């Protein structure tokens, strides 16, 4: 546990010293979300219909922007190599890096969601479910991003390939996430899709780190 917090704290410190990189995905998220009313129609009816879907897809896309930050920097300066050789089990180290990545990229994004949801006239009663669904879906998304980053760690420009690898895998998150939000907009029971999101998170967080660790070992060889 000590090693876990050491790695999380180091990654948080590094992230805050590169503040502009931290802000980029957030700005991207806000801009993509605000492009839709321009392209579709700024009438409340249309926006209410597409709002939740737009938020989910934009969150997914902006998380792709953060992919390179996860392992590439560490691979280039050699600290990933040292992490591999350290006494800390690699799966635990990977989980720590993903946790830190989630804290600096996803958490701020989730804070913006209620504000942006309001601009799409998403009813306030759906906001708790939207936030909860994001809370359940984003750890899985972070593991997927980690997997994409690990598989492409040895490539100079891996970001776009990693996107192609992981976007299809993020399909279930999108389906259950938007479903839960839509149900709550209509005032219906949302338990089923939320349970499925929780199941996916449990699956990703338990098996994902081992898969990412294996991909990193191969990538650095």
């Amino acid at each position: 546990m000590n090693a876990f917090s050491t790695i999380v704290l180091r990654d948080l410190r590094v992230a805050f010293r590169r503040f502009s990189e931290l802000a980029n995905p957030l700005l991207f998220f806000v801009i993509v979300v605000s492009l839709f009313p321009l392209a579709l129609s700024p009438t409340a009816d249309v926006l209410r219909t597409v709002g939740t879907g737009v938020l989910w897809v934009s969150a997914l896309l902006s998380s792709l922007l953060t992919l390179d930050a996860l392992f590439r920097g560490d691979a280039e300066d050699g600290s990933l190599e040292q992490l591999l050789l350290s006494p800390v089990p690699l799966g635990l180290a990977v989980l720590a890096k993903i946790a830190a990545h989630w804290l600096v990229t996803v958490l701020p994004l989730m804070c913006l969601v209620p504000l942006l949801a309001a601009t799409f006239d998403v009813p306030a009663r759906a906001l708790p479910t939207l936030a909860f669904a994001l809370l359940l879906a984003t750890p899985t998304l972070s593991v997927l991003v980690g997997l994409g980053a690990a598989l492409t760690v040895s490539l100079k420009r891996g970001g776009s390939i990693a996107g192609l690898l992981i976007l299809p895998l993020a399909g279930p998150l999108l389906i259950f996430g938007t479903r839960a939000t839509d149900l709550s907009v209509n005032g219906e029971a949302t338990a089923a899709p939320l349970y499925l999101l929780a199941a996916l998170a449990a699956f990703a967080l338990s098996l994902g780190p081992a898969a990412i660790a294996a991909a990193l070992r191969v990538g650095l060889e």
Partner: protein
Amino acid sequence: MLRARGLAIWRGERCLFEGLDFELGPGQLALVVGPNGAGKTTLLRVLAGLAQPTSGRVTWGDSPVDALAGERRAEIAYRGHLDGLKKDLTVTENLAFHSALFLGRTAVEPLLAEIELARAADTRARYLSAGQRRRAALAALKLAPAKLWLLDEPMTNLDSAGRALVVAWTRAHLQAGGSAVVATHQPDEFVAHGAIVIEL
């Protein structure tokens, strides 16, 4: 005890070396020499457990190097071409992190004076010169309780004082019962210790 048995490494169609056997006990130094592209770095990565040999095996004590875990893993320290420092962290932060990761118990401050980085302790690694970064990276060796040092061209970017420091550290490490494998183009600087020479 580090043991390599029948090591062979192929890169594609090209054989870098094969049938390499050697043993390295406490207090012994092995120098890996050979021209550029001979496979010195690859050999050191194999010894560290970062890469797999095409055939043969490497053991540390009684277990294969790529299966070491926990404290046994910390007995081997590897310094490659990359310094392993985060550019956005200060020298002290980098060394403290390294020490925590590798179960080190030594204080960082006295070491900074030894590598003449005491004044740069709170400078981010980004603003250090290549030689200063290398000094910091090598200093990390002194923080962790490793018994085997694997050093890939440790003299790169170092001035003469820095090189003397590396030789002195290695000598002290060997005298304390440690062992080291050093890939180098300047074997003369180390040769005084009666080293095993591995020519690739």
